[in-house]
């Protein structure tokens, strides 16, 4: 100890101390940091199996090392959440080029999706797949979710999440068929035209509130049919074509002579 104490005024002492502090902080963080992943942690086998799947199905566009190419983004650092969202909703592998990749029946089994996600997550740190508790609508506050949805989501997805049009053939999809996990992952990763809503913008609790609000909408409209809830266009079409059409035919019937 005396030898160390004697060198405490050495000009390299601050550097050594700083390195030690960094090491301790890093080690403590690795031990204590909460993990968002609830599913069993992916094993090395999953990563290997995922890489094989990736090379066979994804590398054509995203490159053999997932580094991306012209028109296909790099997947390094997108995290397991992005892979889980894109592949489990069938958006990836993409069927054809178009304004945007449409959802379709998933092309992989759940286990394969988990392996792909493990492989992509191993390429660089990124958002993890949320736990069941993080996306449980029963734990969220639907009223707060409505305020947040109105500010951040409703302009594209519509007042109750039935979707809407964007520019040049792109569109915001209908959310009524999306699972809570998919909604959470979409907010976290910002697929395609959708912006990212990171945990600083919408906290995990606020994301869950939004999921709770969308879950309440599944019960439907108390007033009867909602005409698709896509706004004034559908309602106007009904009024002008069906409503006024019925009124005109009734007027014709009233005015016609009886045979």
């Amino acid at each position, binding site marked *: 100890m005396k030898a160390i104490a004697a060198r405490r005024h050495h000009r390299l002492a601050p550097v050594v101390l700083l390195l030690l502090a960094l090491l301790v902080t890093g080690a403590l963080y690795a031990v204590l940091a909460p993990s968002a992943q609830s599913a069993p942690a992916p094993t090395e086998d999953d990563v290997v199996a995922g890489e094989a799947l990736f090379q066979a199905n994804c590398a054509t566009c995203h490159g053999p090392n997932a580094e991306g190419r012209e028109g296909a983004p790099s997947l390094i650092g997108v995290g397991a959440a992005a892979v889980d969202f894109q592949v489990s909703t069938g958006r990836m592998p993409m069927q054809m080029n178009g304004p945007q990749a449409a959802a379709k029946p998933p092309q992989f089994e759940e286990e394969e999706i988990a392996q792909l996600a493990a492989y992509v997550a191993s390429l660089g740190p990124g958002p993890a797949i949320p736990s069941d508790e993080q996306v449980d609508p029963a734990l969220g506050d639907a009223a707060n979710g409505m*305020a*947040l949805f109105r*500010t*951040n989501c409703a*302009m*594209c997805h519509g007042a109750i999440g039935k979707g*809407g049009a*964007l*520019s040049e053939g*792109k569109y*915001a999809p209908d959310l009524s068929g999306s699972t809570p996990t998919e909604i959470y992952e979409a907010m976290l990763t*910002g697929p*395609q*035209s*959708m*912006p*990212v*809503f*990171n945990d*600083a*913008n919408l906290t995990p609790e606020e994301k869950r509130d939004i999921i709770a609000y969308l879950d309440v909408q599944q*019960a*439907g*409209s*108390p*007033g*009867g049919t909602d005409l698709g809830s896509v706004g004034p266009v559908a309602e106007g079409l009904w009024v002008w074509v069906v409503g006024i059409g019925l009124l005109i035919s009734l007027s014709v*019937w*009233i005015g016609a*002579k*009886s*045979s």
Partner: protein
Amino acid sequence: MSADKPTTDLTTSSTSTSSVEHHGDHVPERFENPGLPPHVHRMGDTDPAAAKRSERQVVALFTLSIIGTIGFVVAYFAVPPGETVASMRLSNLLLGIGLFLAMFGIGVAAVHWAKTLMSDHERVEARHPQKSDPETRAGAIAALSEGAADSGIQRRSLLKGAVVSAVALAPLTIAVPLVGEVGGDWNVSKFRHTLWERGRRLTRDPSGTPIKPAEVTRGSVYHVIPDGLREADHWIEEKAKAVVLMVRIDPDQLTEADDRKDWSYEGIVAYSKICTHVGCPVALYEQQTHHLLCPCHQSTFDMADGAKVVFGPASRPLPQLPITVDDEGYLIAQDDFNEPIGPSYWERLK
């Protein structure tokens, strides 16, 4: 009178117009009044079985209305709206069907009754000339002239001025409060400025929490309101003017005018969310193209290039909010927007 003309006259007149000859049609100079078509009896007028059938149909329609009314009353008591959305929907649906049948049955039955069973005598009511006879007209003019002469309005010009002024001014008692109430506040200049001022923090909408630059990651979009908005007078009007959309753009994709180089912070740019076309909130941000789309009329602004209009009817870019950070590292405004927000009306005041 011309209707009395013999048809031979009509043929000679038609030869003088070449266009008629060209088409080979025989167009008379004036059509004769065809009169009423022969009266056709309805089936029910001649066939008692048909009349009986119509009667049964009318009775059935009235019965439908009675069933609707009974159904409405039964549904009102038996299926009240409960706590769940499904029970409210069922209650509304049953009440609606009952109300529809009750009203529609009566209406259709009445019309059907009138059309098939009530008398169908056709009556012609000739249209009389509306002009009064000359004596009545002359009498009215005489009475008016006599009244005007009697009042002395031609001689007493002061009286004439007084009555015209009084009658002309009286409607102001209605017009002034009406215009005042409808307009509310005619102080237009307050739209020139918003709550934003030097040092005011940018906060999240609706929570009102301040934002650090590091939290605005690539691809994120922040819907921003000024700090302390809720404490402002008429905060909801102030919010309507001050809402901001904030994004981070990669430095190599960001184009900035020379005089606005220091308005962004590390690639974070903030623009008014009020469309310059007619003032809709423009907030459909497509993060891949950096385009911001207005849902009302599809005006599209390029957030990476000064929010310039790239499509649609808007005629000027969105006003930019110059931003920086304060001592605690939170994003703040440098000043108000560079120009008044909202529709391009302001261009004309320059």
